[in-house]
């Protein structure tokens, strides 16, 4: 999976979330919103990732255009999958899910700014 489109990101996130069968536990709308929030976080952490948008508004994805391309360098695409998963699992109340959410979000963060992740 090349992680080119919004659909690719959501499909990959559902694998890690164990949520591949309908009806979904995590609505597609929520996961797409998580991707949008990931873009905002990336703009803060790595402005160079979104250089084409430094003087314009950031891309904003919606469920009506799931085949839209996500303009992220291939080196950093996996990090966004982790961010979507982390955001999705933040809303779970179980203690185990909190740890998992934190692990995903930390992985996103460390992949953005360090080489060891």
């Amino acid at each position, binding site marked *: 999976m090349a992680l080119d489109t919004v659909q690719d990101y959501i499909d990959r996130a559902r694998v890690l979330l164990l949520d591949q069968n309908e009806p979904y536990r995590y609505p597609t709308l929520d996961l797409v919103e998580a991707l949008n929030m990931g873009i905002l976080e990336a703009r803060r*952490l*790595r402005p*160079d*990732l979104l*250089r*084409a948008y430094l003087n314009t508004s950031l891309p904003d994805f919606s469920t009506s255009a799931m085949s839209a391309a996500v303009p992220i*360098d291939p*080196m*950093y695409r996996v990090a966004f999958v982790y961010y979507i998963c982390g955001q999705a699992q933040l809303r779970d109340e179980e203690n185990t899910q909190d740890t998992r959410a934190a692990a995903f979000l930390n992985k996103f963060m460390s992949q953005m*700014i*360090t*080489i060891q992740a």
Partner: protein
Amino acid sequence: MANADMTRLIDHARIRLPGALDAALQMELFSVMNEFFQTSNIWYEDIPFDVTPTSAVYLQDPDAYTYQIVPDQGSITRLVGVVDSKEFPQKAFMPTLGYVVLANSPQNADTFIARVFKTITDPVTREGYPVFPDWVLNKYGVEILDGLLGRMMSQLAKPYSSPALAQMHLRSFKSGISQAKVEASHQNVYRGQSWRFPQTYARRRYVQF
């Protein structure tokens, strides 16, 4: 398509800067090349321009003494000198880059030549690399790579951030610029220096480019 030297330079940078984006490399390369050319003065161009005599007083009509010159590539950083069609030096200034102001009105219509130092400018190539003569990268590729690595490593909170290595590379880059400046002033002649006739015997003052 980028030439082999440019491809080699960017490949070196990609390998030594894990996680670096090509767009960031191109942006920093522009700054590196700009500093390299502005400081070393190794890129120059002789630009001819037509002049006409005037009886106007400069303060009343400065335009009568002002001539616009446009380089073939790049942008002008400073004026080296102006000579007339017989290669006699003419006193001139460039208070605004790109506009030569003659100190005295020419005696008759003529074509003067201005030598200017240049640096890179927009537009860049289709691939996003700055445009400059190929021989520069061929000769000073290592020094330019040092500048690129130094500037990239000095960025904050990136996978490739390294203040210590940045300092080391930027020191090498500065040293490379100095070397390039000296070699350019010697016109790339080994153990050479620009020769001048003993000034005791000089009857006319020639422009020392």
